């Protein structure tokens, strides 16, 4: 890691271009536990019920009792009017730090980053980070038109088709601007499905060919069925605490992380997001770059957004994702392992849990617990988040670089 030698009073770059990751990543505090609940197409219990299952697994993987937890954070779009504090009461936890995220699918990465900072600042010693939902497709469709104010007021009255219509506009723009083809984007969905076939927890495990992807039912042209996630129920959990407390060989260090909201300014259907702002700082802070990563867990609400994340995170130049995807294999044993558990596209989207499924899968891989989908020798990985879709696109972007701690 390079230290900033600047002693001048003026920042080297405009403040607005500086990313959070410049400031602090801990060598002492990191991820010491993780857990996932079962996923279900229809809820058999409440949101907190799924979160409890994930939390129990996270504590067990850390070898800690629940009495160790004195901080809680939650990323959920369906929990309000409940929040992190009421969740602490449900779980019988007395905590010195509680936080609820507001960045949708980018929120879980932010919450874990915040938890590291909270512990570093002495606000807590062990923070339980939760994300998830109890929902099915009908529930999701019923509330999507009220996701936030600008959607409710300026998109829902048009019959905007949920997020599918908005990402149909973005995907078509990428295709017409850069020549990106569905055959190329389809590689993401197809290879992730191959990963999901080795993950018994994934809800969608039927074999998918590129032909299946290309000819799937039309939803919001050019978006077809296998471009879309299936809303479902479930939860994910991450336990943040002192790395030295993790079982031997199981600690995962946070090497860099960043968030960016509302970038770019003033575009309703942008082909880029906040990742491009903090990318260079992220890799500089981590001390290594995209070529040194063993896998990527990208936020996969749609393949087109995975493609845009890979561009913005520097895996290829803007607009060149099509040929890039055509030359790579994104399966767990490929040359760019991507969403190695199948991602949201094959596991299902558990609301805010969609922002944490990449984190838990990354920790699973770095601990060598990936089972039939283990990435050989996985040491370093990238997790990115995306969310809070509002007028035309997701406002929030986040990313975190994780490394197996020695």
């Amino acid at each position, binding site marked *: 890691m390079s230290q900033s030698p600047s002693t001048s009073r003026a920042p080297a770059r405009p403040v607005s271009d500086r990313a959070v990751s410049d400031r602090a990543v801990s060598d002492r505090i990191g991820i010491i536990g993780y857990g996932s609940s079962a996923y279900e197409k229809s809820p058999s219990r409440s949101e907190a019920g799924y979160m409890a299952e994930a939390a129990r697994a996270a504590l067990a993987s850390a070898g800690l009792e629940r009495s160790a937890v004195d901080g809680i954070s939650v990323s959920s779009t369906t929990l309000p009017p409940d929040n992190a504090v009421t969740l602490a009461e449900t779980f019988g936890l007395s905590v010195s730090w509680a936080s609820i995220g507001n960045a949708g699918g980018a929120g879980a990465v932010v919450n874990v980053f915040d938890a590291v900072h909270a512990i570093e600042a002495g606000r807590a010693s062990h923070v339980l980070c939760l994300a998830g939902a109890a929902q099915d497709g009908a529930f999701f469709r019923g509330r999507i038109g009220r996701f936030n104010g600008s959607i409710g007021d300026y998109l829902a009255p048009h019959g905007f088709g949920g997020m599918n219509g*908005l990402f149909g506009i973005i995907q078509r723009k990428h295709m017409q601007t850069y020549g990106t083809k569905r055959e190329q984007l389809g590689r993401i969905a197809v290879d992730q499905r191959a990963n999901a076939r080795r993950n018994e927890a994934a809800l969608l495990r039927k074999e998918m060919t590129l032909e299946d992807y290309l000819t799937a039912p039309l939803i*919001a*042209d050019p*978006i077809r069925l296998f471009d879309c996630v299936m809303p479902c129920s479930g939860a994910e959990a991450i336990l943040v605490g002192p790395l030295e407390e993790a079982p031997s060989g199981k600690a995962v260090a946070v090497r860099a992380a960043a968030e960016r909201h509302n970038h770019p300014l003033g575009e309703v259907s942008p082909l880029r997001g906040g990742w491009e702002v903090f990318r260079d700082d992220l890799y500089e802070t981590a001390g290594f770059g995209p070529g040194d990563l063993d896998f990527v867990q990208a936020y996969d609400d749609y393949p087109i957004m995975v493609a845009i994340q890979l561009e913005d995170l520097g895996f290829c130049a803007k607009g060149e994702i099509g040929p890039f995807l055509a030359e790579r294999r994104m399966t767990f044993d490929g040359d760019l392992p991507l969403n190695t558990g199948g991602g949201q596209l094959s596991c299902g989207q558990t609301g805010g849990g969609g922002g944490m499924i990449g984190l838990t899968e990354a920790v699973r891989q770095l601990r060598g617990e990936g089972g039939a989908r283990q990435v050989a020798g996985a040491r370093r990985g990238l997790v990115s988040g995306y969310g809070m879709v509002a007028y035309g696109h997701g406002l929030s972007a986040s990313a975190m670089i994780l490394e197996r701690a020695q």
Partner: protein
Amino acid sequence: MTNEVSAAYPEARVTPDNAPMLKRWREAGELVLQHCEGCGKAVFYPRPVCPHCWSDRLVWRPASGKGTVVSFSVIHRGLPAPFDAEAPIGLAEIALEEGISMIARVLVADGEELESGAGVALVGKADAARFPLPTFRIAR
């Protein structure tokens, strides 16, 4: 567009920020946009402060109601009532002549196809009252 509207469309909440736009659309089938007297830029969606310069001196001015399709989606499935009965629904990013973009529904008549680069215009006063927000058709 052959179906008469049965179930009601969802509507925008009427607020001090957007009331002039909603009223003008409903009563006259015209689009009015906020313009900032601080920096001169047009603003959509309506808001209480200019996002470019933070001025609160936002005034309403008539827009031409014409623009160009930048990109679009044609939505076939997953629509709530009453839109499901009207599928497919055209939804487009439209670059307005005033220099800003909005996302809006574009009505596509039989024999027409939505295309990027196509000119669009407001549906006109007779149809405006049927739709909660300024809605477009392909310009002829």
